[in-house]
């Protein structure tokens, strides 16, 4: 459930942007450029995977005594309501 965090869209997008910026400067040796290109593609794929994660998750925050919190899914309640 908490694995969504592994895929950080923001970080991947920054990687892609910086790869493009450096590639467009054009003064890189070929091998370095290819490495950058490959890294950029990976970042691009990560971005896309992130964007396609289609399931919305909605939870309700319930405060427990002693300052701890519990999350329960809202979906089930919502569906029974409508």
């Amino acid at each position, binding site marked *: 459930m908490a694995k*969504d*965090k592994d895929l950080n*869209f*923001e970080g991947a*997008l920054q990687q*892609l*942007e910086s*790869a*493009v910026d450096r*590639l*467009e400067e*054009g003064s*890189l040796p*070929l*091998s370095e*450029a*290819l490495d950058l*290109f*490959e890294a*950029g*593609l990976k970042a*691009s*794929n990560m*971005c*896309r995977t*992130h*964007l396609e*994660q*289609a*399931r*919305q*998750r*909605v*939870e*309700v*925050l319930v*405060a427990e005594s002693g*300052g701890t*919190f519990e*999350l329960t899914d*809202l979906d089930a309640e919502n569906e029974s*309501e409508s």
Partner: protein
Amino acid sequence: MAEHPLTVSELTQTVRQTLEQFPPLWVVGELSNFTQASSGHRYFTLVDEESQLKCVMWRSRQLSGFSPEPGMEVLAQGTLTVYDRRGEYQFNVSQLFQSGVGQQQLAFEALKQRLIEEGLFDEEVKRPLPEFPQIIGVVTSRTGAAIRDILNVLRRRAPWVRVVLRPALVQGLEAPEDIVQGIEALNAWGKADVLIVGRGGGSAEDLAAFNAEVVVRAVRDSAVPVISAVGHEVDYSLSDLAADCRAPTPSAAAELAVPDADDLRELVGRLTLRARDSIYRLLEENESTLAHYSDSYSLRHVEDLVFQHDQHVDELQKDLFVHFRRAFDGKLEAYRRLSGQLGSLSPLSVLERGFSVTQRLDDGRLVQDAGTLNPGDRVRVRFAKGEAICQVEGVQEESLLT
């Protein structure tokens, strides 16, 4: 001594006639001593800090939809007269309204002024919203329209976002404390990137909780940036003023909170295509070097990479097409609807009559004066159908038509 003394009645009569010459007046004041006699006539006094005004409202006059209570601020329309038997002047009321400028309004303005002076609403204390929030905390009613609207927008724009709702009453006496607890609980939980605090539209009274000082302070004190969404287009609640960002409705708050997935796809697609173009250019430049290594492993690797990449780009382009198509269809439909409404006002219908629109090619500015053009400038001319890129050959500053 006195040659022609007046009788009491004569004097009263004269005063009465003088007072009755006043045109009908509006008077604002606080209601006191309201009594409705068994005859059905109402007697009351309007007061302010320094003076009193005796009033009467005859049975035949309707009270406009409220029940008078002591201390209520009211607006009365009527005429001045004298009650002869007592020698008192009084206000003969024809219409009575509950005044909008009551104590509550004054208290609201006073609180607002105090918080302004305290710097609670200053632009400098507002924080930017995160660009790519992963978790959005929401404080609103569990059953209201607000949470449904928010979820709808987020599902469409950013389905990967996790939403954590902290239900709170949004109207009634307990609402302020409940909203404060919601904001504090989400802060204590600590994982939300941004909060949306609000409710759907309602009357001014329904929105009162968002003007409560405790709520306003909780919004400002939140460690997590807050988008306020109190559904009222016209008036700002004090929570709106204290929030880092204000949205007119819960849906609008959700739109402000997250980037749009289609925009992001387009951005990623564009960047990826730029990466490809750069690498192709580089490969062309290095063609001779590459030929030298034509059989080497690293070149096969590069080839492989490029082919795979082409495939990836093809997919991207297909995706982009689908998304543009979807966005375009939506816009086309909206356009058809609008152009139906606008009829002859539409700029397009002007084009259809044979006019065209000219823009400078370099900066896109509309050309309204030939004098701003020079021979050699390039312009884009839009017709009802299609467009042409043209080069200016000559300029005539006066129109031949005028």
